[in-house]
């Protein structure tokens, strides 16, 4: 199986009374809480952590896109990915991803992804999320009723921009371009970089991923127990559509905290986990469900987005306890965060992978206000003590959705960063 190291880049210094004094971590979070000089250190720590994860041997490093968000400091994940392209060598770069409808024209995504693919020698995984309501409809003012139509059209345009050999005209409902001809072009051109779709639990998305032969990723913050029914629904749908159970069709996000013992793990990871589930998911319910964002078919199926669930549950007050655990005991009991000694984590990771049948496990080993030291400890321990004992899973399946980079010997040698030498 593939073990992928995911960073959300949370602002790590939201005040203790954040939830009491501020209505939302997202959309209208107050600028006075943001200290750019502290953010300088946060970004550099986070990028160190991603590079460290690559050195430790994770199969991929993952970044994602959020806007006006106190737990996601990457409005442009492409900026981080381009830096990682220079500071890593063999690790896949998973940009999870670019919200297509937010780019005007969407060929910008085709271009920037092609740049990352060229710089990295063909290591890009191209994620195309619709994007959350808070990011797309509120922070970026996109029309919720048009968002999905724009998304699908932008997808078609980007894919054609990557694959068509000649300059072409694109006449869509929302995008009209007389001359589509992107330079650069992606290295992965047979036919294009792997496309992964992070989504909620909608049947339409599952069907679309199956039809297009894309990886479906369920990026829940609520762990494998809450994610089980969604992933079972996904696999039932794949079976109905006559698709095999290749676990590499799917990706899943899981928080993990590994230490020498369970007691030590609790001691180390309680604060960052409670910071994340308390402060980082403090989203005002008024930004959770813009009309039209959720399709009528999904409404009929009674499916809500995960942030909407959490936000609505929080404002409704106690009756949906399942989605609002904020204290470590519940966070662990409900499976949001897997903690324990290496052996205990091995057992749980194997259980997650096999019960959900997920070949791409995206791991959050930094969360909330976790320090760089603790993040590196968690990362190293996972890489050394857990990874070797779970890598064997699903070896009978082929991962057809993984990047195919240039051969190592053909790739540019990236010189080590040596500022002192440069100054001499």
């Amino acid at each position, binding site marked *: 199986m593939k073990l992928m190291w995911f960073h959300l880049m949370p602002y790590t210094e939201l005040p203790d009374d954040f939830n009491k004094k501020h209505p939302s971590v997202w959309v209208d979070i107050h600028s006075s809480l943001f200290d750019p000089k502290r953010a300088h250190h946060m970004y550099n720590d986070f990028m160190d952590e991603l590079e460290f994860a690559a050195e430790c041997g994770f199969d991929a490093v993952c970044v994602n896109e959020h806007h006006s968000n106190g737990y996601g400091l990457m409005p442009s994940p492409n900026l981080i990915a381009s830096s990682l392209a220079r500071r890593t060598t063999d690790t896949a770069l998973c940009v999870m991803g670019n919200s297509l409808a937010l780019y005007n024209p969407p060929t910008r995504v085709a271009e920037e992804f092609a740049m990352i693919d060229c710089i990295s020698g063909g290591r890009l995984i191209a994620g195309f999320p619709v994007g959350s309501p808070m990011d797309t409809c509120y922070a970026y003012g996109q*029309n919720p009723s048009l968002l999905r139509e724009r998304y699908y059209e932008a997808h078609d345009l980007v894919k054609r921009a990557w694959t068509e050999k000649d300059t072409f005209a694109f006449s869509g409902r929302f995008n009209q371009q007389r001359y589509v001809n992107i330079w650069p072009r992606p290295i992965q051109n047979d036919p294009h970089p792997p496309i992964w779709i992070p989504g909620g639990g909608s049947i339409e998305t599952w069907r679309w991923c199956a039809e297009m032969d894309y990886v479906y990723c369920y990026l829940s913050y609520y762990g494998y127990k809450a994610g089980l029914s969604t992933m079972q629904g996904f696999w039932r749908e794949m079976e109905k559509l006559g698709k095999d159970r290749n676990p590499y069709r799917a990706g899943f996000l899981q928080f993990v905290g590994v230490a020498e013992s369970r007691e030590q793990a609790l001691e180390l990871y309680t604060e960052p986990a409670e910071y994340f589930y308390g402060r980082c998911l403090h989203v005002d319910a008024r930004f959770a469900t813009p*009309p039209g964002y959720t399709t009528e078919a999904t409404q009929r199926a009674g499916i809500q987005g995960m942030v909407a669930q959490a936000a609505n549950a929080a404002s409704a007050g106690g009756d949906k306890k399942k989605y609002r655990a904020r204290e470590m005991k519940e966070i662990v009991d409900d499976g949001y965060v897997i903690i324990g000694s290496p052996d205990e984590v091995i057992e749980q990771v194997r259980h997650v992978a096999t019960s959900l049948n997920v070949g791409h496990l995206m791991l959050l080993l930094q969360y909330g206000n976790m320090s760089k030291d603790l993040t590196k400890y968690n990362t190293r321990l996972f890489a050394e003590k857990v990874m070797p004992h779970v890598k064997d899973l699903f070896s009978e399946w082929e991962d057809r959705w993984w990047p195919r980079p240039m051969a190592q010997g053909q790739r540019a040698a990236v010189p080590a960063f040596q500022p002192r030498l440069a100054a001499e």
Partner: protein
Amino acid sequence: MSEPQTLTVDVNGFPCRIWRKGSGPKLGFLAGFGGLPRWVPFLDRLAEKRTVIVPSLPGFPGATGHTMLDNHLDWLVAVHQLLRQADLAGADLVGSSVGGAFAADMAAVFPGLVKRLVLMAPFGLFDERDPATDPWAQRGDNVAGLMCAEPENWKKLVEMPAGANSIEWPIEMTRASEAAARALWPLGNTQLVKRLKLIEVPTLILWGDQDRIMPQGYAKILSREIRAESRVQTIAGAGHLAWLDQPQKTAEAIEAFLA
């Protein structure tokens, strides 16, 4: 209160409901945010002296087809078709809230279509210094108090009737909000202010004195920019949907203007 006659017309291949009741000169009504999930006393009151014709805009209760409309021109053409098929060409037209934005544009863009115009706290304008409330970024339990001075009046409008499909009813209510969003997201600003000078028919501008969505100051902008004679009147004890809070007073103001 008796039920109106219900007709269905086709706009872009989708059905749109037309309600019709009363006798006398025709009077059209384009409803506001949420549309009309049920017939209301205000319309009965108007139907005492007029033939009241109430077309449902695409996506609002009784109508679909909003998903075909990608931009303001698409919307204007659809509403124009709808009014003509509802037999409202040349009639007096009342528009409230979302319907008000379209009623104003019908008068501005299609000369001769509207005889006299009544605008009740219409969408279509936006002033950064005096912003309208965002109706789409609200907790569910907040909406009633924003739409009406007396929240119960909104709740009664959208309450599920006995025997209605409990899955489809809330979807229909969400669809109405989506249709409004599709036409007006994110600010409600259709750049109507640029076209107000094209309105050449007498116009009455009505505002609930407790409107918590549309700032009262927008009435002045409308009155100033509309070329024809216009006058502003405030309805006491009324919120954004003045006709829900004060059906009698609102109907009287309209009748007096059209008399």
